């Protein structure tokens, strides 16, 4: 029998101590063990981006990260960055532009857009599409998402301070 491992990490600012099987992915851990169901499973091959999370400040695929690899890490999911208000401008843009329909890709899109805007305050539409190149959406056709990110970038640049 393979022993579970104890991992200690911070998730959305909360300290978490749990035992996990080595094979359990980070996305499954966050969803099943912590009940943070805002991040979604879409493919388990790292292609669709539905499981996108932030680990130690960097975007990662939750399906291509093991929970045991997150020992000692600082994780943020959609719930955390939403509740903190970090992505309020993006969320307002998404709502106004209807940049979501079924909502399943949306947490991944928001995490990825936030990552882009961290480094680029006025991305072009091409740059937005480029950064979102690994996030699959079946409903919107992407245009409204690009519009929303553009709006949010403008709001954040203009309305800051």
């Amino acid at each position, binding site marked *: 029998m393979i022993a579970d491992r104890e991992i200690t990490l911070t998730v959305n600012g909360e300290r978490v101590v749990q035992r996990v099987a080595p094979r359990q992915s980070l996305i499954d851990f966050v969803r099943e063990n912590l009940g943070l169901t805002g991040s979604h499973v879409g493919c388990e*091959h790292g292609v669709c981006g539905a499981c996108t999370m932030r680990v130690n400040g960097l975007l990662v695929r939750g399906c291509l990260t093991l929970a045991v690899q997150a020992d000692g890490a600082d994780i943020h999911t959609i719930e955390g960055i939403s509740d903190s208000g970090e992505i309020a401008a993006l969320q307002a843009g998404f709502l106004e532009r209807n940049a979501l329909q079924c909502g*399943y890709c949306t947490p991944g899109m928001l995490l990825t857009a936030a990552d882009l805007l961290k480094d680029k305050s006025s991305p072009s539409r091409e740059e937005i599409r480029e950064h979102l190149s*690994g996030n699959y959406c079946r409903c919107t056709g992407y245009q409204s998402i690009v519009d929303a990110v553009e709006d949010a970038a403008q709001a954040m640049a203009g309305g800051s301070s």
Partner: protein
Amino acid sequence: MPLSIHDWPNSYIGRSVPRPNARRLIHGRGTYVDDIRLPRLVHVAFLRSPYAHAAIRSIDVSAAQRSPGVVRVVTGVEMAKHCKPWVGVATHMRGLKSAPQYALAVDRVRWQGEPVVAVVAQTRAQAEDAVALVEISFEELVPVADMETALDPGTPVIHADLGDNLAFELRVEAGKVDAAFAEADVVVEETFHFGRNTGVTLESRSTLADYCAGEGKLTVYMSSQAPHMMKNVIAKHLGLDEDNVRVICNDVGGSFGIKIHTYPDEMCATALSVMLKRPVKFVADRLESFVSDIHARDHRVKARLAVNRDNRITALEVDDLTGIGPYSAYPRTSAVECHQVVNLTGGAYDFANYRAHGRVVFQNKNLMCQYRAVGHPIAFSVTEGLVDAAASKIGIDPAEFRRLNLRADDAYPYTSASGLQFEKLSHQKSLAKILAMMDYDGLRRQQATLRRDGIYRGIGLAAMIEVTAPSGAFYGVGGVPIAAQDGCTIRLDPTGGITCATGIAETGQGSETMVAQIAASAVGVPIEKVRVVTGDTETTPYGGGTWASRATAIAGEATLQAGRALRANILEVAGALLQSAPADLDIRNGAVVDADTGVERMTLSDVGKTVYFRGHELPDGVKPELVATRHYTPRDYPVAFSNAVQACSLEVDVETGFVKMLKYWVVEDCGTVVNPRLVAEQIRGGVILGIGAALYEHCIYDNQGQMLNASMIDYLVPMAVEMPDVEIGHIATPTAETVLGAKGAGEAGMGGAPAAVVSAINDAIGVFGVRITAIPATPLQILEALGKIDKKGQ
């Protein structure tokens, strides 16, 4: 003259209101099936057939049963006792035949991916571990993997009882087709091929069945578009009392028609809950989705068009062959896509002579059934492909050729050669509008200039009609228990808020918002005071769900009627309380007001509180009904057709065969538009799906019936970088059949985009004297057509 719905004070109809139910989704607080946890929940995974066609020789589950965490292992023979097989036929599809389909294969497997053994365990991972321990031996049989030879004498018959592999055949004839072709000045003939596609919903199919032994009640949380239909199907095949089955659809992560069919794995999971008397969850993973979600679009069409010396189309002939799976899917049947192709091809044009022959054949591949814009992409790719070929042969501009041949806007009401009844469409106006929007002449000039520099741009056009809001003539007439009507119940609460319950479903298109807008307008409340309930068969009126672009046209009308009825009820009570005639009162912004002056007399909350808490204050004889239900079913027309025209501009790199999408336009006429942004977004999403079909998507099968690209790495779906922006224009020709006047719009984008894209590609490479007639139009295909590389043998 009564006010139209657009003139009602504070009407939300026609406004791009943001979706109230989107808020929880952007906060990551949606509730999709896999988000739900229940006590004693167990998970099911399946051993699926590795072969397209084989006899099951033996199954030994002993090692699987001993695997850690395993609760139960079930094979087909046992499952058949708990879940009766189903047959995907309908009486109005005359001659359609199919064999009983079981939840788990019994004796034989007939497609790669068919579920054979179910393993239930504490976790999905443990269930999969146990699946790997099942010892099963198959005897391979020759698979039927080529639709062109499915009916040949030497080909194995998949179901001996059925006699042959022909599931369905359809013939339509109108006018004098042979004479028209004989007399024609120009005839063009093409053979079109369409790659098999699948939906790839980001949330895969998910079912959580919860059987409560004490109550004998089954609750099924499903990711689905049609809860009432599934309730009926589940009850029927599990042998349960339908009144004791409840289906709940919360948030659905995309459907597009995929989640509207009866799937053996989902039925199995549901039956297992009843057998085990505990909640059972099944979530299809991505790999199994590719070989179990329904496929669509696998067609080969031979067609020809006759044109006379006035450049007018006189005749169209179509021969459609489609290869489905080993069963016609249930309950909507796998004949509908062929039926639509036969019905819709040529539908936007004016000609009297039409012949069509459609055949649906069984194959040992995954099942095929309705997927967004059923049959439309094929019908219009064929039509527009012939139209472009004719224009090219004649030497006339393709836009001008369409202008000459699209049905005139004053030709209505009209019945087409294929028997379609049109109330009123706007093809000519739409075409003129799109040509202006895109600056067609400017694009042509630019195309000519760039061509001199060796840059090959193409401009594509596609005119189309869309089937929306079907009446009972679609399914009900064939004995299929799918509702053609829909209902809405609206209730006023003491808070002054209203709650609407309706039988349609929300899968992201915004149907709940549409209902809220109509209800708010019809009753007279601010939209913030409206709650909408959908998706729960226990709490909503018996309805049809969301499909065939029916929600706005049908449930929207029911909502409007219910809202008006509630308003009348409220005014009757208010009139009695205020001692005014109800006709002198109005409801605006959540309050009862003087109709003439707009002065507030009492709030709706006051009305509610009086009725609910202080009934003694009401005058004698007043019987307050602060709830109203109305149902609506279309009657005058079997289908409410809408129309659209699409255009695109793209560039073909003739050295590499790569296509770069530049810009896209759609002019849509779906009658009254409740929420312009939601309609635009439906069109955009549909267009991108259609571009996917045109350029990328293909379920590739080998000659052994094995799907070769069953993962998201190899089945290519449109991603952000490659997709264009889509500009939308609008024309409104409301239907007179309803007060709302809305037709559907959800599928138009997908229906015409493959045609528009191929039209543009052929416009770009036409200078080399070549055309493509197969999609997806991959770089390989384009290079072969251009002669840059040799065509590989079949």
